[in-house]
């Protein structure tokens, strides 16, 4: 899995949210669960009212946030937010909500084909991050969808980027390559 570390400035996302267990209705990789329904609602709004969202930053890129609240570990319910990035907020339609992401350092992974439907979160949080000497605060993660995503019916040909926010690097950590030697 391809990865890189990136630093971002503050990001302003405009979109729609859902809180709960999104798979209550249906758990397949279809548009029939709450995440699919959320995307459908948002894309319908975008196509009908494209001009009502101002200062788009980059067309054809959309984000899905998974936000873990305090009660998430107990109930398995979490927030899902889908939206687009804007440069600044102006005359925002009442139907839209806003997320402001602070400047942050992310580990970015390109998920391809079958990886999209796999337990990539575990692979990143439980394997990649600790091996690379990083920690995640597990408060949220971002999926970035651009023209390389071909729809839920075509996952095999699609690419999705995952942004995992990093806590400051552990003081005594070593880099990825030397980890094996240091353990031996």
């Amino acid at each position, binding site marked *: 899995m391809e990865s890189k570390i990136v630093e971002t400035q503050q990001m302003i996302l405009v979109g729609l949210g859902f809180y709960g*267990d*999104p*798979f*209550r209705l*249906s*758990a*397949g990789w279809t548009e029939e669960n709450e995440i699919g329904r959320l995307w459908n609602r948002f894309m319908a709004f975008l196509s009908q009212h494209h001009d009502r969202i101002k200062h788009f930053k980059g067309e054809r890129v959309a984000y899905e946030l*998974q936000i*873990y609240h305090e009660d*998430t*570990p*107990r*109930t*398995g*319910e*979490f927030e899902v937010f889908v939206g687009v990035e804007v440069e600044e907020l102006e005359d925002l339609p009442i139907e839209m909500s806003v997320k402001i992401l602070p400047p942050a350092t992310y580990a970015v992974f390109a998920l391809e084909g079958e990886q999209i439907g*796999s*337990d990539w*979160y*575990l692979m990143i*949080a*439980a394997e990649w991050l600790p091996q690379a000497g990083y920690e995640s605060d597990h408060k949220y993660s971002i999926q970035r969808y651009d023209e390389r995503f071909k729809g839920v019916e075509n996952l095999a040909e699609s690419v999705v980027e995952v942004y995992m926010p990093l806590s400051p690097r552990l003081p005594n950590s070593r880099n990825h390559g030397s980890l094996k030697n240091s353990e031996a």
Partner: protein
Amino acid sequence: MPDLALISKAIDFVEDNLQEPVTVAGMADAAGYSLYYFCRVFNQATHHTPYDYLMRRRLSETTRALLRTDQKIIDVALDYQFNSPETYSRAFKRMFDIQPSQMRKGGYIDSHRLMPRLTLAHLEYISQGQYLKPVLVESEPCQLAGLMTLVRDDERDRLQLWQLFAEELARLQEQFKPGPIYGVANYAEGWESSGYQYLAAAETGGQTISGTALVLKPMPRLTCARFFHKGPIADLSLTLDYIYHTWLPKAGVSASHPWVIEHYGHDLPPASDWQSTIEIRIPLIT
């Protein structure tokens, strides 16, 4: 497809910790999945959210405790991690439609409504999926005539009854309407200890039937959810568990009668080989 053995580990973890402060994150850890992925695959495998399953299992066990012991309601609630009597009563009423105190005072909860622990057999059965999407069917009032028995042993008692009914049907053929054959199970209050009534029957043309052993049963107009059970009759409980614990609550509907109606078309149920597909109808409140 989710790995059912791993989902089973999460279910084992729930069973071992019904009285402990279990979280969905803990269930995910037991299965070895991330929380997000676990929520998805648990739903795929069981058709319940992990939290809903945990709550239904806890509530069902509290019901058993209330029926079997003299423990105070609040103590039972606290034992099973409900942090206040109010939270407990609300959750209990949502699942069983009565308050725990009403049930204690002689109310009745059909044990079909107590969520069983889902076994690997349940998960494998759900994953086959053929019977999971019922259609609604309406039926006109009619009169059934047939033979009735009290069933304690599913396979033996029912097989015997169908053999006897086949003889009656052959003898009195002209008095029955050509049409579907029915097996109607009536889970009347207390069936758990005494067995359930089972009627093997066919529709009469409305005239009196002369066989002395025959029972007449008028059937009202019904709206039913129609499912198909695949496999041996001994596994019928897998289908019924799915209907009562997963499909009915999810669809937001309740059964109008404690009946499970088997609908056999024009043929009698196969006498020797029970590895068949059985059409099952559950009457609904509309």
